């Protein structure tokens, strides 16, 4: 897929995110938008998956360790055809299968339930381990938040993945720099992130602009060639990316736009969509 095509899809994924969170009157737009390009790249370029056969045995797996950015995952899954796009508007509604955090029991395409930070990576490691134990070739991807890596379990999982040389595992850190209480380095600095993963025996790839498909492509291509160790892609992104008044604003971590903000956001995305050609 060309970069232009990916950009168009990512813009539609962002429309889905904003619409879902607006309809839910709650949710996490900031980190969903920062990772929208990563979601898009994974589901439309990188992973061996089939929305018509969500459980096929040899599929690549994805675990959203930063589970609160479910609107991003749901939006890309809907765009890919796992379920109807209209269902995004039921996000967080009573009776909807689109729970506030990913629920693998009822959502087609969700490989693991997540939401409690720090836990998704361990499940991804378990899936990667299972593939190794039973000589299967699929790859496993997991997306972490840069605030999430303050959880100790992340490093338990990283130590295991490095120790067991899980080269079928790609950990992506959505380094948007913000968490609920403020800038990550002010709350409790996770930096240097790359050196930490290196110390845990990962092959580390830094991506200066994780909202740029060319750079994501280079990183994921490099990851494929790595053997004997897991890969960590540290992607610098912009929280709230694509919505002018949300970008790099900590207050948009976990709230929904009001009517006026929603219209403004959709206007931003409409313009962005028109500009992609």
């Amino acid at each position, binding site marked *: 897929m060309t970069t232009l095509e990916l950009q168009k899809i990512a813009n539609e994924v962002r429309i889905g995110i904003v619409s879902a969170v607006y309809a839910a009157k709650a949710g996490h737009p900031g980190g969903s938008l920062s990772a929208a390009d990563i979601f898009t790249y994974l589901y439309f370029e990188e992973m061996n998956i089939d929305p018509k056969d969500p459980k096929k045995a040899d599929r690549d797996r994805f675990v959203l360790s930063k589970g609160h950015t479910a609107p991003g995952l749901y939006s890309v899954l809907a765009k890919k055809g796992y379920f109807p796009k209209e269902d995004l508007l039921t996000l967080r509604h009573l009776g909807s299968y689109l729970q506030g955090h990913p629920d693998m029991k009822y959502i087609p395409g969700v490989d693991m339930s997540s939401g409690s930070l720090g836990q998704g990576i361990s499940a*991804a490691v378990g899936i990667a381990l299972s593939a190794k134990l039973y000589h299967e070739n699929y790859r496993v991807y997991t997306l972490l938040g840069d605030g999430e890596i303050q959880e100790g379990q992340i490093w338990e999982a990283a130590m295991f993945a490095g120790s067991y040389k899980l080269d079928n595992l790609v950990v992506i850190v959505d380094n948007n720099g913000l968490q609920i209480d403020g800038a990550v380095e002010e709350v409790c600095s996770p930096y240097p992130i790359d050196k930490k993963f290196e110390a845990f025996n990962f092959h580390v790839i830094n991506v200066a602009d994780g909202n740029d498909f060319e750079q994501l492509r280079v990183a994921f291509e490099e990851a494929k060639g790595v053997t004997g160790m897991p890969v960590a892609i540290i992607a610098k992104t912009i929280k709230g990316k694509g919505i002018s008044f949300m970008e790099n604003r900590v207050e948009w971590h976990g709230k929904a736009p009001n009517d006026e903000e929603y219209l403004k956001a959709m206007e931003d995305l409409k313009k962005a969509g028109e500009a992609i050609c």
Partner: protein
Amino acid sequence: MLEVKKIATRDSYGNALVELGKENDDIVVLDADLAAATKTGTFKKIFPERHIDCGIAECNMMGIAAGIATTGRIPFASSFAMFAAGRAFEQVRNSIGYPYLNVKIGATHAGISVGEDGATHQCNEDIALMRSIPGMVVINPSDDVEAKAAVKAAYKHKGPVYLRFGRLAAPVINDKSDYTFELGKGVTLREGRDLTIIATGLMVYEVLEAAKILSVGGLEAKVINIHTIKPLDEELVVSAARTTGKVVTVEEHSVIGGLGSAVCDVLCAKAPVMMLKIGIQDVFGESGPAVKLLRKYGLTAAGICKSVKEWY
């Protein structure tokens, strides 16, 4: 007097895993640096490629087990009860319980019979914690025969199971040709008209001995072994309460949230009777030889008799 054969149920766990492993390629055993103590080392010797040591990181181990389960294999995640149910509670709840994954948790060294290690390692809260998770099956076998059968039943059951084992060698009481294990079904081991004593795990033997002593004193106790605390055999418990009236529960676990509470929950709704909960009375344990600890905390046949007589 005949010497009773004694085997720790943690040994039964290790041996049952080997038996299962021989027939089933889909079993993966996980441990957290305690393979020698949880007895998964027995499995490791025969199936090294399917035994994974996660290091001292129980929370991660539970997540790994969850991940493995999503791929259709059946992981047995093993550690001491304190760390499996206690430390990793939230991982068990959110990564295993909520997605209802087919993970088996083999928790050894439960209760105060851990002995010399003392309070930090004596988990008297695990049944309470695990039974609070929706869908979790909780099994606390009474001896070697039952423990091995429980491990096999857990393997067959589709869904998360918490298996509770002990460190102390336990008398073998189920070594009979007609023994069968049915998940969720209690077993009446002795009939009696005056009261029902419901026991689980290591306490089943002690209660059987206690019932003999009580009988000499003129009290005839019906004795029920509840190996599956969740789902509880409500029918059996209710019918016993209706038949004998007074009910006593005995467990090597806190009286808060364990077998006693589970029985109370059912009886207060369906067949209210006077109840006595014998167990760890809302205190921490301490260091000491297991047998002496059981005696001090009233969890031997003599202690159980004393508590029952004072209350009856």
